[in-house]
């Protein structure tokens, strides 16, 4: 029984940290891209910043208690309930409810990431700089999940 309990706790811990690990991985890539001097890749900085934030936020948000009767274990469950235009938008709704001050950072990152393609990935330096600043604001709040 102790072995089974131990294995269960280990698996839960692994899953608990997967979002954080993936978020941190994407953050490391973002940081590396930001250091490049021979090639400009603001589009990828913004993209890795967004997809890092996504994983940190998913760690923060779930399980998400909507009310006494409804708890979402993951984004799929939340999206079936809210039926917004996209899962990314559903995530935004949950962020605004759980930690409203972070929603505008998420909105910024998502918007700049998705719209880069309409400018042939020509992303302003200031936007890349802001993307990193917003990610660095998001991370400690998500890591310190209560």
């Amino acid at each position, binding site marked *: 029984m102790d072995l089974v309990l131990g294995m269960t706790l280990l698996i839960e811990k692994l899953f608990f940290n997967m979002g954080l690990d993936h978020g941190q991985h994407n953050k490391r890539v973002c940081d590396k891209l930001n250091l490049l001097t021979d090639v400009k890749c603001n589009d990828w900085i913004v993209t890795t910043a967004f997809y890092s934030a996504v994983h940190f936020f998913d760690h923060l948000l779930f399980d998400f208690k909507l009310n006494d009767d409804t708890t979402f274990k993951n984004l799929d469950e939340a999206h079936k309930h809210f039926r917004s235009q996209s899962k990314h*938008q559903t995530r935004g709704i949950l962020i605004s409810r759980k930690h409203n001050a972070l929603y505008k950072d998420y*909105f910024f990152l998502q918007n700049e990431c998705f719209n880069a393609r309409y400018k042939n990935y020509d992303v302003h330096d200031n*936007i890349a700089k802001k993307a990193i600043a917003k990610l660095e604001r998001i991370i400690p709040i998500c890591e310190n999940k209560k």
Partner: protein
Amino acid sequence: MDHMSLQSTKDQISDTIINWAATRLDEIVFEPKDGFYSFNIVVDAYEKGAEELNKIKQSYRDKYFYNAKLSTVAVKDVFEILSSNNVTPNKLFINTSVDGTHILLVLDKSSYQGDEIIDIIYEKFADLQMRYFNEEKNIKIGLMCDSDKLDINALKEDGFGFGYDFINRKTFF
């Protein structure tokens, strides 16, 4: 563009959007997304049979037009945000379908140079986006910096069927 010009442009744009939506052909209104028709269209057609098809088509046209009108609501709201911050858009793109509407504002590069203005606008856009969701208005709003590398074809491919250039005062499509 001064405040009065922006106001009259906003009104003209709303009329232009409505006229554009009213003239969309059925093929565009019912256009499959990613190669597949909306699940609801298929189910409705199967369940109700061919003789009901015209009624189904009309209900989808009504939904499409309703979402196009929501675009004009969003245009009014985003213009108010921009004008209160002395920012005028360079371009506007709209992606309307039976599922909802997406407004994309293109701002001049100068808006992105400093920190303050773009931070304020983003904050207000984020608040507006949440307000739409809470009011159950299926509107998505976004903004981006203008660029010499603007890819109109990419916008079109992603469903942005309406585009307007405020500087040259002309539609794109």
